[in-house]
């Protein structure tokens, strides 16, 4: 009968990891609903370096020192404190207690540093909470951020604070550990002020221990529903990010085939394997986007640096690059639920373009790349804006009239204004 806690632990462990993996596979399936666009740069060394610099090294976060440093504390603590999970899992499975304790002094140094980091996390996360809920920081106040996104952001902060407190209290309530006087710089202070009878302390210790690990299991599976997926997805996202100059907008291969046909320079071997009837020029829904754009959407943590830097947004236009990313994720998840329910996608008379993102937003973009520059994890909202515009123009012919005039001019006389190509050198005179 003494194996009951071990069995319960194992069931919780396997169950939560299983749920986590199955949800992760669902995300993968949804991302793969995007087009299988090939990467234009196959330099894996360069990609790896970018991932190490931007995701692992937080290279782009520091441009905003306050948020950057606080975030770095939480990030590095997350990685380091999670080492303790190894011990917790071993203890849980085998019914041991602090299995690494025999390491002695080193164990004390480890747990002691975890405790200090835990305290730093509590401080940092509290400041984050104040920034989100008390200070009026503009990028957290956009319309799209009200409701679930705001609750989501706060829930993540609550999870983190509670887990850190549980970790500290779990140590504080561990009387034998406390009596050893190693590695308890923070929990020691709590222990000395506990108003609990020492005999009942071990019950409290068990409660904190179990709450802590169950909290971690819940948080792990909460990620799937939240914006917090960036803690994993930032890595593939920065690895697969665009390596070319930001100014380069992809040349559409489907269009190239048509243009070559028109110009009579079609190679015999290209473009014939795709039937041109199924080709959609540009994107009207998430399944017209590339897998990388959908990965971008899942990776977005809604920090709003993009929107804050957007010239259109700061001058009061409707465009918000963050909303573009959030809409894209909302829609891909809706499509995913549709597939879960029906086995395959049943048309729902909805589209990303129109039902989520309006033409007005799209036409306000100046393609200045400020949003791309600002994103701390290399998300590219501009590429989605451009693909939706492409659909509006090439499939819907619904460009603003002035742009149609501009394009007519280019077509007729090789300039965006109605001047004759024959007059191109007149400036000389």
């Amino acid at each position, binding site marked *: 009968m003494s194996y009951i806690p071990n069995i319960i632990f194992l069931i919780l462990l396997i169950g939560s990891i299983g749920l986590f993996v199955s949800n992760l596979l669902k995300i993968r399936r949804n991302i793969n609903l995007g087009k299988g666009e090939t990467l234009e740069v196959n330099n894996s060394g360069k990609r790896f370096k970018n991932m190490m610099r931007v995701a692992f090294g937080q290279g782009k976060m520091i441009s905003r020192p306050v948020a950057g440093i606080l975030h770095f504390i939480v990030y590095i603590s997350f990685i380091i404190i999670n080492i303790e999970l190894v011990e917790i899992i071993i203890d849980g499975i085998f019914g041991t207690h602090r299995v690494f304790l025999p390491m002695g002094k080193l164990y004390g140094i480890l747990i002691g540093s975890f405790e200090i980091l835990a305290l730093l996390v509590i401080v940092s996360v509290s400041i984050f909470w104040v920034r989100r809920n008390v200070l009026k920081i503009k990028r957290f106040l956009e319309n799209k951020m009200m409701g679930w996104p705001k609750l989501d952001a706060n829930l993540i902060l609550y999870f983190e604070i509670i887990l850190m407190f549980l970790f500290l209290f779990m140590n504080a309530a561990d009387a034998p550990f406390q009596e050893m006087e190693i590695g308890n710089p923070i929990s020691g202070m709590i222990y000395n002020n506990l108003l609990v009878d020492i005999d009942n302390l071990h019950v409290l210790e068990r409660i904190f221990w179990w709450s802590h690990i169950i909290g971690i299991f819940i948080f792990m599976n909460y990620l799937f529903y939240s914006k917090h997926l960036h803690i994993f997805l930032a890595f593939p996202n920065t690895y697969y990010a665009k390596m070319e100059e930001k100014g380069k907008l992809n040349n559409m291969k489907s269009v190239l085939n048509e243009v070559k046909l028109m110009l009579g320079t079609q190679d015999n071997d290209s473009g014939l394997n795709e039937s041109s009837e199924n080709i959609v020029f540009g994107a009207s829904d998430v399944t017209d986007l590339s897998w990388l754009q959908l990965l971008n959407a899942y990776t977005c943590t809604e920090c709003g640096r993009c929107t804050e830097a957007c010239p259109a947004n700061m001058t009061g236009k409707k465009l918000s690059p963050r909303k573009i990313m959030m809409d894209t994720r909302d829609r891909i998840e809706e499509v995913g639920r549709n597939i879960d329910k029906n086995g395959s996608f049943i048309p729902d008379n909805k589209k990303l373009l129109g039902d989520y993102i309006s033409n007005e937003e799209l036409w306000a973009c100046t393609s200045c790349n400020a949003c791309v520059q600002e994103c701390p994890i290399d998300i590219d909202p501009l590429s989605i804006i451009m693909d939706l515009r492409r659909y509006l123009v090439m499939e819907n012919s619904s460009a603003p009239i002035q742009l149609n005039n*501009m394009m007519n001019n280019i077509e007729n006389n090789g300039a965006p204004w109605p001047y004759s190509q024959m007059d191109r050198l007149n400036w000389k005179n």
Partner: protein
Amino acid sequence: MDNLNVKTFSECIEQGVIPEILFWVGCAGSFDERAKKITKAFVKILNKANIKFAVLGKEESCSGDPAKRAGNEFLFQMQAMNNIETLNSYSIKSIVTTCPHCFNTIKNEYPELGGKYTVYHHSQFLNKLMKEGRISVEGGNFKGKKITFHDPCYLGRANGVYEAPRNLIKKIDAELIELKRSRSKGLCCGAGGAQMFKESEQGRKEISSERAEEIEESEAEIVAAACPFCNTMISDGLKSDKKEKDNTKIYDIAELIANANDL
């Protein structure tokens, strides 16, 4: 009048001369009244330095940038293919342009379509000429003047060129003042992505005014631009700004160099 020495590529070939570089003038540089002055200023410098350059003249056509950014990939690729055919027919190897949009498109988007060239923005080319000792600049008219630089998106963020234009400003012995939002954080003028050719969407204000206000707060006497569209937008922004402190002047870096040299 100005005694500009400008030849087209076909004229050069007829005369048996192979130009060392093509000057891609661009639509703004060819037709826009303000931008034509930039074109001329740049040509004056090229003439002074005895650069064997040529233009395409009537054979030049829009690079396709505004069509591409407006979403019309067909029109873009048609323009690109035709331009590449022209460029390749003259075996052109290197190109300089005063327009960051043409610069970006030809440099980054033409290669896949068969057009591989060494492409310079004129700020880079002028730096190169100075380094090679082919032009020299003394402070001249702008010595000690407070000059700020507006980073064009398609030169700065899009292609990572931040220092070349700043070097030129330092070369004319001016005091370079940085705007609050500069380099990779530079604020757009509002023209990119084909916005130049349409009314902006409903909002609180124009992007160009937002930028103009920042420039006016900077106490710069002159704002240096490096893009014909930025030039237009910022002039408009400065004009529409209601403050009567309307003495901030805008020059392209080519004009600064040309004026400094009293060309």
